[in-house]
Protein backbone atom coordinates (compact mmCIF):
# COMPACT_ATOMS: atom_id res chain seq x y z
CA UNK A 1 0.00 0.00 0.00
CA UNK A 2 2.74 2.39 1.04
CA UNK A 3 4.82 1.48 -2.01
CA UNK A 4 1.87 1.90 -4.37
CA UNK A 5 1.27 5.35 -2.93
CA UNK A 6 4.93 6.27 -3.34
CA UNK A 7 4.87 5.16 -6.97
CA UNK A 8 1.66 7.04 -7.72
CA UNK A 9 3.08 10.12 -6.03
CA UNK A 10 6.23 9.83 -8.16
CA UNK A 11 4.21 9.48 -11.36
CA UNK A 12 1.98 12.42 -10.61
CA UNK A 13 5.04 14.59 -9.97
CA UNK A 14 6.27 13.78 -13.47
CA UNK A 15 3.05 14.01 -15.51
CA UNK A 16 3.00 17.78 -16.02
CA UNK A 17 6.74 18.29 -16.58
CA UNK A 18 6.79 15.42 -19.06
CA UNK A 19 3.88 16.91 -21.00
CA UNK A 20 5.25 20.45 -20.90
CA UNK A 21 8.78 19.46 -21.96
CA UNK A 22 8.17 16.26 -23.89
CA UNK A 23 5.54 17.58 -26.29
CA UNK A 24 7.53 20.59 -27.53
CA UNK A 25 10.66 18.40 -27.74
CA UNK A 26 8.84 15.90 -29.92
CA UNK A 27 7.40 18.80 -31.92
CA UNK A 28 10.93 20.07 -32.52
CA UNK A 29 11.93 16.62 -33.75
CA UNK A 30 8.94 16.70 -36.12
CA UNK A 31 10.11 20.15 -37.33
CA UNK A 32 7.10 21.98 -35.96
CA UNK A 33 7.78 25.69 -35.32
CA UNK A 34 7.17 25.08 -31.61
CA UNK A 35 7.29 28.62 -30.26
CA UNK A 36 4.91 30.07 -32.83
CA UNK A 37 2.58 27.09 -32.54
CA UNK A 38 2.55 27.41 -28.75
CA UNK A 39 1.68 31.11 -28.92
CA UNK A 40 -1.03 30.46 -31.46
CA UNK A 41 -2.63 27.82 -29.25
CA UNK A 42 -2.20 29.84 -26.07
CA UNK A 43 -4.13 32.73 -27.65
CA UNK A 44 -7.28 30.66 -27.28
CA UNK A 45 -6.89 30.59 -23.50
CA UNK A 46 -8.37 34.03 -23.04
CA UNK A 47 -11.31 33.33 -25.33
CA UNK A 48 -12.18 30.11 -23.56
CA UNK A 49 -12.01 31.72 -20.11
CA UNK A 50 -14.23 34.59 -21.19
CA UNK A 51 -16.67 32.24 -22.89
CA UNK A 52 -17.34 30.26 -19.71
CA UNK A 53 -18.03 33.35 -17.56
CA UNK A 54 -21.80 33.59 -18.27
CA UNK A 55 -22.28 29.87 -17.59
CA UNK A 56 -20.29 29.99 -14.36
CA UNK A 57 -22.12 33.10 -13.16
CA UNK A 58 -25.50 31.53 -13.90
CA UNK A 59 -24.74 28.39 -11.93
CA UNK A 60 -22.76 29.85 -9.06
CA UNK A 61 -25.07 32.71 -8.16
CA UNK A 62 -28.07 30.36 -8.05
CA UNK A 63 -26.18 28.02 -5.75
CA UNK A 64 -25.06 30.96 -3.61
CA UNK A 65 -28.64 32.14 -3.17
CA UNK A 66 -29.82 28.61 -2.43
CA UNK A 67 -27.23 28.24 0.33
CA UNK A 68 -27.79 31.68 1.83
CA UNK A 69 -31.56 31.22 2.03
CA UNK A 70 -31.43 28.28 4.42
CA UNK A 71 -33.08 26.01 1.82
CA UNK A 72 -30.09 23.70 2.17
CA UNK A 73 -30.84 23.12 5.84
CA UNK A 74 -34.47 22.42 5.00
CA UNK A 75 -33.41 19.89 2.36
CA UNK A 76 -31.18 18.17 4.91
CA UNK A 77 -34.03 18.03 7.43
CA UNK A 78 -36.28 16.61 4.72
CA UNK A 79 -33.87 13.90 3.57
CA UNK A 80 -32.67 12.80 6.96
CA UNK A 81 -35.63 10.55 7.92
CA UNK A 82 -35.30 8.79 4.55
CA UNK A 83 -31.56 8.21 4.82
CA UNK A 84 -31.25 7.33 8.51
CA UNK A 85 -32.76 3.81 8.06
CA UNK A 86 -30.22 2.84 5.41
CA UNK A 87 -27.36 3.73 7.72
CA UNK A 88 -26.53 7.12 6.24
CA UNK A 89 -25.55 9.33 9.19
CA UNK A 90 -27.17 12.76 9.48
CA UNK A 91 -23.76 14.27 10.29
CA UNK A 92 -22.40 13.72 6.78
CA UNK A 93 -25.58 14.60 4.89
CA UNK A 94 -24.62 18.28 4.48
CA UNK A 95 -21.39 17.16 2.82
CA UNK A 96 -23.27 14.87 0.42
CA UNK A 97 -25.54 17.73 -0.64
CA UNK A 98 -22.93 20.50 -0.86
CA UNK A 99 -20.23 18.48 -2.66
CA UNK A 100 -21.79 18.55 -6.17
CA UNK A 101 -22.66 22.24 -5.73
CA UNK A 102 -19.43 23.86 -4.55
CA UNK A 103 -15.84 22.70 -4.21
CA UNK A 104 -14.61 25.39 -1.82
CA UNK A 105 -17.80 25.15 0.24
CA UNK A 106 -17.38 21.42 0.74
CA UNK A 107 -13.70 21.84 1.61
CA UNK A 108 -14.78 24.33 4.27
CA UNK A 109 -17.25 21.76 5.52
CA UNK A 110 -14.52 19.12 5.89
CA UNK A 111 -12.44 21.61 7.89
CA UNK A 112 -15.47 22.40 10.03
CA UNK A 113 -16.14 18.70 10.67
CA UNK A 114 -12.51 18.08 11.64
CA UNK A 115 -12.88 20.79 14.26
CA UNK A 116 -16.21 19.46 15.49
CA UNK A 117 -15.79 15.68 15.49
CA UNK A 118 -12.01 15.27 15.59
CA UNK A 119 -9.66 14.18 12.83
CA UNK A 120 -10.04 10.50 13.66
CA UNK A 121 -13.83 10.28 13.66
CA UNK A 122 -15.78 8.12 11.25
CA UNK A 123 -17.78 11.13 10.06
CA UNK A 124 -14.67 13.02 8.99
CA UNK A 125 -13.41 9.93 7.15
CA UNK A 126 -16.72 9.60 5.30
CA UNK A 127 -16.75 13.28 4.39
CA UNK A 128 -13.13 13.11 3.22
CA UNK A 129 -13.83 10.08 1.03
CA UNK A 130 -16.86 11.87 -0.41
CA UNK A 131 -14.71 14.90 -1.12
CA UNK A 132 -11.92 12.87 -2.68
CA UNK A 133 -14.01 10.59 -4.83
CA UNK A 134 -16.36 13.05 -6.55
CA UNK A 135 -16.18 16.31 -8.45
CA UNK A 136 -18.15 19.54 -8.24
CA UNK A 137 -20.66 18.38 -10.85
CA UNK A 138 -22.32 21.73 -11.50
CA UNK A 139 -18.97 23.49 -11.92
CA UNK A 140 -17.78 20.86 -14.39
CA UNK A 141 -21.03 21.18 -16.36
CA UNK A 142 -20.74 24.97 -16.47
CA UNK A 143 -17.09 25.00 -17.51
CA UNK A 144 -17.05 22.14 -20.04
CA UNK A 145 -20.36 22.90 -21.73
CA UNK A 146 -19.81 26.64 -21.40
CA UNK A 147 -16.57 26.37 -23.34
CA UNK A 148 -18.44 25.10 -26.41
CA UNK A 149 -21.64 27.09 -25.82
CA UNK A 150 -23.81 24.04 -25.15
CA UNK A 151 -27.02 25.17 -23.50
CA UNK A 152 -29.16 22.03 -23.71
CA UNK A 153 -27.28 19.59 -21.52
CA UNK A 154 -29.75 16.68 -21.97
CA UNK A 155 -29.06 13.81 -19.57
CA UNK A 156 -25.67 15.10 -18.40
CA UNK A 157 -26.87 16.41 -15.04
CA UNK A 158 -29.00 13.36 -14.17
CA UNK A 159 -26.09 11.06 -15.05
CA UNK A 160 -23.61 13.15 -13.05
CA UNK A 161 -25.91 13.37 -10.04
CA UNK A 162 -26.65 9.64 -10.15
CA UNK A 163 -22.93 8.98 -9.98
CA UNK A 164 -22.63 11.50 -7.14
CA UNK A 165 -25.41 9.89 -5.11
CA UNK A 166 -23.86 6.47 -5.68
CA UNK A 167 -20.46 7.81 -4.59
CA UNK A 168 -21.95 9.26 -1.38
CA UNK A 169 -23.56 5.94 -0.47
CA UNK A 170 -20.42 3.97 -1.38
CA UNK A 171 -18.31 6.37 0.71
CA UNK A 172 -20.41 5.66 3.80
CA UNK A 173 -20.37 1.92 3.27
CA UNK A 174 -16.70 1.62 2.36
CA UNK A 175 -15.62 3.67 5.38
CA UNK A 176 -17.88 1.59 7.65
CA UNK A 177 -16.41 -1.56 6.19
CA UNK A 178 -12.76 -0.50 6.52
CA UNK A 179 -12.83 1.53 9.73
CA UNK A 180 -16.17 0.95 11.41
Amino acid at each position, binding site marked *: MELARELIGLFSAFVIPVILVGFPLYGLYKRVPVYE*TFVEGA*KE*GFGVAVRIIPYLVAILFAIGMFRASGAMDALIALLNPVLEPIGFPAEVLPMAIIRPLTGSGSAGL*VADMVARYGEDSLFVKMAAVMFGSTETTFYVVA*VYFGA*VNIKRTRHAIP*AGLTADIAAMLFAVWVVRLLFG
Partner: protein
Amino acid sequence: MLNYIWAALLISAFVFAGVSDIGDLSRDTYRNGQPLPVVLEFPQGTAAIDGRTQVRIRINAGVYQDFYGTDESPAASYDGVLLRTGEGMVLRFDAGAALPEPLETIRGVSRSNDDELQGTVEGFLTPVLGLGDDPTAAEATVQFEPVRFVKMTAIGAAALDFAETAAGIAIGLIGVLALFLGVMKIAEEAGIIYAIVRVVRPVLRPLFPDVPDDHPALGMIALNLTANVFGLGNAATPFGIKAMEELQKLNPSEDTATNPMVMLLAVNTASVQLVPPVLLLALLGLQINRLIFAIIITTGLSLLVAIIAARLYGKLPGSRASDPNRKRPFGEQPREAGRDSRRGEG
Protein backbone atom coordinates in the same frame (compact mmCIF):
# COMPACT_ATOMS: atom_id res chain seq x y z
CA MET B 1 -32.99 19.52 -17.35
CA LEU B 2 -30.62 22.23 -16.21
CA ASN B 3 -33.48 24.69 -16.78
CA TYR B 4 -35.57 23.04 -14.09
CA ILE B 5 -32.74 22.60 -11.58
CA TRP B 6 -31.65 26.18 -12.06
CA ALA B 7 -35.17 27.54 -11.64
CA ALA B 8 -35.73 25.27 -8.64
CA LEU B 9 -32.60 26.62 -6.94
CA LEU B 10 -33.72 30.22 -7.44
CA ILE B 11 -37.36 29.73 -6.51
CA SER B 12 -36.63 27.67 -3.43
CA ALA B 13 -34.05 30.25 -2.33
CA PHE B 14 -36.64 33.01 -2.62
CA VAL B 15 -39.42 31.03 -0.94
CA PHE B 16 -37.24 29.85 1.92
CA ALA B 17 -35.81 33.28 2.55
CA GLY B 18 -39.32 34.74 2.56
CA VAL B 19 -40.76 32.09 4.87
CA SER B 20 -37.88 32.32 7.30
CA ASP B 21 -38.04 36.13 7.39
CA ILE B 22 -41.77 36.20 7.96
CA GLY B 23 -41.29 33.59 10.69
CA ASP B 24 -38.67 35.82 12.31
CA LEU B 25 -41.00 38.80 12.16
CA SER B 26 -43.95 36.94 13.66
CA ARG B 27 -41.82 35.41 16.43
CA ASP B 28 -40.02 38.73 16.86
CA THR B 29 -36.73 36.79 16.99
CA TYR B 30 -34.64 39.95 17.19
CA ARG B 31 -36.84 41.81 19.72
CA ASN B 32 -36.88 44.87 17.49
CA GLY B 33 -37.46 48.03 19.47
CA GLN B 34 -36.90 46.43 22.87
CA PRO B 35 -33.74 47.34 24.78
CA LEU B 36 -31.48 44.56 26.11
CA PRO B 37 -30.49 44.91 29.80
CA VAL B 38 -26.73 44.84 30.40
CA VAL B 39 -24.30 45.68 33.18
CA LEU B 40 -21.42 47.98 32.31
CA GLU B 41 -18.20 47.90 34.31
CA PHE B 42 -15.82 50.81 34.23
CA PRO B 43 -12.29 49.56 34.97
CA GLN B 44 -11.06 53.14 35.29
CA GLY B 45 -13.89 54.16 37.59
CA THR B 46 -17.07 56.03 36.79
CA ALA B 47 -15.51 59.43 37.30
CA ALA B 48 -13.53 59.02 34.11
CA ILE B 49 -16.48 58.82 31.70
CA ASP B 50 -15.90 61.17 28.80
CA GLY B 51 -16.20 61.07 24.98
CA ARG B 52 -14.76 57.56 24.70
CA THR B 53 -14.59 55.21 27.66
CA GLN B 54 -13.35 51.62 27.88
CA VAL B 55 -16.02 49.38 29.41
CA ARG B 56 -16.57 45.74 30.15
CA ILE B 57 -20.04 44.56 29.15
CA ARG B 58 -21.64 41.80 31.17
CA ILE B 59 -24.85 40.13 30.00
CA ASN B 60 -26.60 37.87 32.47
CA ALA B 61 -27.12 34.49 30.77
CA GLY B 62 -30.57 33.93 32.30
CA VAL B 63 -31.76 37.41 31.37
CA TYR B 64 -30.39 36.94 27.84
CA GLN B 65 -32.13 33.60 27.32
CA ASP B 66 -35.43 34.96 28.65
CA PHE B 67 -35.15 38.09 26.59
CA TYR B 68 -34.47 36.40 23.23
CA GLY B 69 -36.17 33.09 24.02
CA THR B 70 -33.02 31.16 23.10
CA ASP B 71 -30.77 28.46 24.59
CA GLU B 72 -27.57 30.19 23.68
CA SER B 73 -25.66 32.00 26.36
CA PRO B 74 -23.29 34.94 26.08
CA ALA B 75 -19.67 34.93 27.30
CA ALA B 76 -18.94 36.08 30.86
CA SER B 77 -18.05 39.54 29.63
CA TYR B 78 -17.22 41.47 26.45
CA ASP B 79 -14.83 44.35 26.02
CA GLY B 80 -16.22 47.44 24.42
CA VAL B 81 -16.31 51.21 24.41
CA LEU B 82 -18.91 53.74 25.41
CA LEU B 83 -19.08 56.73 23.11
CA ARG B 84 -20.80 60.03 23.73
CA THR B 85 -22.21 61.22 20.41
CA GLY B 86 -24.64 63.83 19.20
CA GLU B 87 -27.48 61.30 19.39
CA GLY B 88 -26.68 60.09 22.88
CA MET B 89 -24.55 57.34 24.36
CA VAL B 90 -23.48 54.55 21.99
CA LEU B 91 -22.16 51.20 23.20
CA ARG B 92 -19.80 49.32 20.89
CA PHE B 93 -18.70 45.72 21.34
CA ASP B 94 -15.12 45.11 20.23
CA ALA B 95 -14.76 43.77 16.70
CA GLY B 96 -14.29 40.01 16.59
CA ALA B 97 -16.23 39.37 19.78
CA ALA B 98 -17.71 35.84 19.72
CA LEU B 99 -21.39 36.67 20.04
CA PRO B 100 -24.23 34.20 20.58
CA GLU B 101 -27.24 34.13 18.25
CA PRO B 102 -29.28 36.22 17.66
CA LEU B 103 -26.73 38.92 18.58
CA GLU B 104 -24.41 37.63 15.88
CA THR B 105 -27.11 38.23 13.26
CA ILE B 106 -27.98 41.58 14.78
CA ARG B 107 -24.33 42.58 14.38
CA GLY B 108 -24.79 42.18 10.62
CA VAL B 109 -27.29 45.06 10.70
CA SER B 110 -26.65 47.12 13.81
CA ARG B 111 -22.96 47.83 13.44
CA SER B 112 -20.27 50.45 13.18
CA ASN B 113 -18.16 50.99 10.08
CA ASP B 114 -15.64 48.49 11.42
CA ASP B 115 -18.17 45.68 11.86
CA GLU B 116 -18.50 46.18 15.60
CA LEU B 117 -21.88 45.46 17.14
CA GLN B 118 -23.24 48.78 18.36
CA GLY B 119 -26.43 50.06 19.95
CA THR B 120 -27.63 53.17 21.68
CA VAL B 121 -27.65 53.10 25.46
CA GLU B 122 -31.00 53.88 26.96
CA GLY B 123 -32.03 54.02 30.59
CA PHE B 124 -28.48 54.88 31.43
CA LEU B 125 -28.47 57.49 34.17
CA THR B 126 -25.95 60.27 34.21
CA PRO B 127 -24.31 60.89 36.51
CA VAL B 128 -23.59 57.19 36.84
CA LEU B 129 -24.81 55.58 40.01
CA GLY B 130 -22.80 52.74 41.49
CA LEU B 131 -24.42 49.32 41.31
CA GLY B 132 -24.82 47.80 44.77
CA ASP B 133 -21.53 47.94 46.57
CA ASP B 134 -19.53 48.11 43.35
CA PRO B 135 -18.98 51.75 42.53
CA THR B 136 -17.49 51.00 39.11
CA ALA B 137 -20.46 49.22 37.53
CA ALA B 138 -23.83 50.43 36.36
CA GLU B 139 -26.96 48.92 34.88
CA ALA B 140 -28.04 50.06 31.47
CA THR B 141 -30.14 48.93 28.56
CA VAL B 142 -28.96 48.81 24.94
CA GLN B 143 -31.19 49.37 21.97
CA PHE B 144 -30.03 47.84 18.68
CA GLU B 145 -31.20 48.82 15.26
CA PRO B 146 -34.22 46.81 14.13
CA VAL B 147 -33.42 43.66 12.14
CA ARG B 148 -35.80 42.77 9.33
CA PHE B 149 -35.63 40.47 6.29
CA VAL B 150 -32.20 39.09 7.13
CA LYS B 151 -32.43 36.16 4.71
CA MET B 152 -33.83 38.28 1.88
CA THR B 153 -30.88 40.63 2.26
CA ALA B 154 -28.56 37.64 2.53
CA ILE B 155 -29.67 35.97 -0.72
CA GLY B 156 -29.33 39.27 -2.55
CA ALA B 157 -25.84 39.72 -1.18
CA ALA B 158 -24.96 36.10 -1.95
CA ALA B 159 -26.02 36.47 -5.58
CA LEU B 160 -23.77 39.50 -6.08
CA ASP B 161 -20.96 37.85 -4.18
CA PHE B 162 -21.05 34.60 -6.14
CA ALA B 163 -21.35 36.38 -9.48
CA GLU B 164 -18.09 38.11 -8.65
CA THR B 165 -16.52 34.81 -7.56
CA ALA B 166 -17.59 33.13 -10.80
CA ALA B 167 -15.92 35.77 -12.97
CA GLY B 168 -12.86 35.57 -10.72
CA ILE B 169 -12.61 31.83 -11.22
CA ALA B 170 -12.88 32.15 -14.99
CA ILE B 171 -10.30 34.93 -15.16
CA GLY B 172 -8.02 32.92 -12.88
CA LEU B 173 -8.09 30.08 -15.40
CA ILE B 174 -6.68 32.17 -18.25
CA GLY B 175 -3.01 31.50 -17.51
CA VAL B 176 -3.29 27.74 -17.07
CA LEU B 177 -5.62 27.48 -20.06
CA ALA B 178 -3.18 29.40 -22.26
CA LEU B 179 -0.27 27.23 -21.09
CA PHE B 180 -1.92 23.91 -21.82
CA LEU B 181 -3.76 24.99 -24.95
CA GLY B 182 -0.40 26.18 -26.28
CA VAL B 183 1.26 22.84 -25.58
CA MET B 184 -1.73 20.98 -26.99
CA LYS B 185 -1.43 22.94 -30.20
CA ILE B 186 2.14 21.68 -30.53
CA ALA B 187 0.95 18.15 -29.75
CA GLU B 188 -1.66 18.47 -32.46
CA GLU B 189 0.75 19.79 -35.07
CA ALA B 190 3.37 17.16 -34.24
CA GLY B 191 0.85 14.34 -34.41
CA ILE B 192 1.22 13.33 -30.76
CA ILE B 193 -2.54 13.35 -30.26
CA TYR B 194 -2.96 10.78 -33.01
CA ALA B 195 -0.31 8.58 -31.44
CA ILE B 196 -2.19 8.77 -28.13
CA VAL B 197 -5.46 8.01 -29.88
CA ARG B 198 -4.00 4.78 -31.26
CA VAL B 199 -2.92 3.69 -27.77
CA VAL B 200 -6.14 4.48 -25.90
CA ARG B 201 -8.60 3.50 -28.61
CA PRO B 202 -9.27 -0.02 -27.28
CA VAL B 203 -10.10 1.36 -23.83
CA LEU B 204 -12.15 4.41 -24.82
CA ARG B 205 -13.84 2.93 -27.88
CA PRO B 206 -16.65 1.21 -25.96
CA LEU B 207 -17.37 4.40 -24.00
CA PHE B 208 -17.49 6.67 -27.05
CA PRO B 209 -18.89 4.56 -29.86
CA ASP B 210 -20.13 7.62 -31.77
CA VAL B 211 -16.65 9.13 -32.13
CA PRO B 212 -14.84 8.14 -35.37
CA ASP B 213 -11.90 5.81 -34.90
CA ASP B 214 -9.00 8.18 -35.49
CA HIS B 215 -10.58 11.33 -34.17
CA PRO B 216 -8.33 13.58 -32.01
CA ALA B 217 -11.18 13.89 -29.48
CA LEU B 218 -10.21 10.48 -28.11
CA GLY B 219 -6.65 11.66 -27.49
CA MET B 220 -7.86 14.77 -25.65
CA ILE B 221 -10.22 12.67 -23.58
CA ALA B 222 -7.34 10.35 -22.70
CA LEU B 223 -5.17 13.27 -21.56
CA ASN B 224 -8.09 14.72 -19.60
CA LEU B 225 -8.67 11.43 -17.79
CA THR B 226 -4.96 10.93 -17.16
CA ALA B 227 -4.66 14.36 -15.55
CA ASN B 228 -7.73 13.56 -13.46
CA VAL B 229 -6.34 10.23 -12.29
CA PHE B 230 -3.20 11.95 -11.05
CA GLY B 231 -5.16 14.61 -9.21
CA LEU B 232 -4.00 17.39 -11.55
CA GLY B 233 -7.27 19.32 -11.68
CA ASN B 234 -5.64 22.41 -13.17
CA ALA B 235 -4.32 20.46 -16.14
CA ALA B 236 -7.44 18.32 -16.49
CA THR B 237 -9.68 21.34 -17.16
CA PRO B 238 -7.90 22.58 -20.32
CA PHE B 239 -7.72 19.01 -21.68
CA GLY B 240 -11.40 18.50 -20.93
CA ILE B 241 -12.33 21.77 -22.64
CA LYS B 242 -10.20 20.82 -25.65
CA ALA B 243 -11.90 17.41 -25.75
CA MET B 244 -15.29 19.14 -25.68
CA GLU B 245 -14.23 21.39 -28.57
CA GLU B 246 -13.23 18.35 -30.59
CA LEU B 247 -16.54 16.66 -29.80
CA GLN B 248 -18.38 19.85 -30.74
CA LYS B 249 -16.84 19.62 -34.22
CA LEU B 250 -18.71 16.32 -34.61
CA ASN B 251 -21.92 17.87 -33.33
CA PRO B 252 -24.48 18.90 -35.96
CA SER B 253 -26.19 21.11 -33.37
CA GLU B 254 -24.94 24.45 -32.05
CA ASP B 255 -26.18 24.22 -28.50
CA THR B 256 -27.31 20.67 -27.71
CA ALA B 257 -25.06 18.11 -26.06
CA THR B 258 -24.32 14.84 -27.88
CA ASN B 259 -24.08 11.44 -26.20
CA PRO B 260 -20.25 11.40 -26.18
CA MET B 261 -20.27 14.84 -24.52
CA VAL B 262 -22.57 13.57 -21.79
CA MET B 263 -20.33 10.53 -21.32
CA LEU B 264 -17.21 12.71 -21.04
CA LEU B 265 -18.96 14.83 -18.46
CA ALA B 266 -20.22 11.87 -16.46
CA VAL B 267 -16.76 10.29 -16.40
CA ASN B 268 -15.33 13.64 -15.26
CA THR B 269 -17.81 14.22 -12.46
CA ALA B 270 -17.10 10.73 -11.15
CA SER B 271 -13.46 11.87 -11.14
CA VAL B 272 -11.29 8.80 -10.84
CA GLN B 273 -8.40 9.80 -8.65
CA LEU B 274 -5.39 7.88 -7.46
CA VAL B 275 -3.92 11.01 -5.94
CA PRO B 276 -6.12 12.84 -3.44
CA PRO B 277 -6.79 16.53 -4.09
CA VAL B 278 -4.22 18.86 -2.57
CA LEU B 279 -6.97 20.58 -0.62
CA LEU B 280 -7.83 17.37 1.23
CA LEU B 281 -4.17 16.79 1.98
CA ALA B 282 -3.94 20.25 3.47
CA LEU B 283 -7.00 19.64 5.64
CA LEU B 284 -6.28 16.16 6.93
CA GLY B 285 -2.50 15.82 6.71
CA LEU B 286 -1.03 12.32 6.79
CA GLN B 287 -4.33 10.83 7.90
CA ILE B 288 -5.04 10.80 4.17
CA ASN B 289 -2.73 7.80 3.75
CA ARG B 290 -5.27 5.60 5.46
CA LEU B 291 -8.11 6.92 3.32
CA ILE B 292 -6.52 6.51 -0.11
CA PHE B 293 -7.72 2.96 -0.47
CA ALA B 294 -11.29 3.89 0.49
CA ILE B 295 -11.23 6.79 -1.97
CA ILE B 296 -10.00 4.60 -4.82
CA ILE B 297 -12.69 1.96 -4.22
CA THR B 298 -15.45 4.58 -3.96
CA THR B 299 -14.33 6.51 -6.98
CA GLY B 300 -14.02 3.33 -9.04
CA LEU B 301 -17.52 2.19 -8.14
CA SER B 302 -19.00 5.60 -8.83
CA LEU B 303 -17.23 5.69 -12.20
CA LEU B 304 -19.03 2.49 -13.13
CA VAL B 305 -22.33 4.01 -12.06
CA ALA B 306 -21.56 7.16 -14.07
CA ILE B 307 -20.87 5.18 -17.23
CA ILE B 308 -23.97 3.04 -16.83
CA ALA B 309 -26.15 6.06 -16.01
CA ALA B 310 -24.89 8.07 -18.99
CA ARG B 311 -25.50 5.13 -21.31
CA LEU B 312 -28.87 4.20 -19.81
CA TYR B 313 -30.32 7.72 -19.60
CA GLY B 314 -29.23 8.26 -23.20
CA LYS B 315 -31.64 5.50 -24.21
CA LEU B 316 -34.65 7.14 -22.55
CA PRO B 317 -37.24 8.48 -25.01
CA GLY B 318 -36.65 12.08 -23.92
CA SER B 319 -32.90 11.89 -24.48
CA ARG B 320 -33.36 10.09 -27.78
CA ALA B 321 -35.71 12.79 -29.04
CA SER B 322 -33.21 15.54 -28.20
CA ASP B 323 -30.17 13.73 -29.59
CA PRO B 324 -28.57 16.01 -32.22
CA ASN B 325 -27.45 12.91 -34.16
CA ARG B 326 -30.92 11.39 -34.27
CA LYS B 327 -31.96 12.26 -37.81
CA ARG B 328 -28.74 11.11 -39.44
CA PRO B 329 -29.05 8.07 -41.67
CA PHE B 330 -27.37 5.09 -40.02
CA GLY B 331 -23.72 4.40 -40.80
CA GLU B 332 -23.23 8.03 -41.80
CA GLN B 333 -20.85 10.17 -39.77
CA PRO B 334 -22.70 13.04 -38.16
CA ARG B 335 -20.70 15.77 -39.82
CA GLU B 336 -22.20 18.74 -41.54
CA ALA B 337 -20.96 19.78 -44.94
CA GLY B 338 -18.02 22.15 -44.67
CA ARG B 339 -17.56 21.28 -41.02
CA ASP B 340 -14.22 19.62 -41.25
CA SER B 341 -12.96 18.02 -38.07
CA ARG B 342 -9.76 20.01 -38.25
CA ARG B 343 -11.46 23.35 -38.46
CA GLY B 344 -11.20 25.48 -35.33
CA GLU B 345 -14.23 26.60 -33.38
CA GLY B 346 -15.34 30.24 -33.47
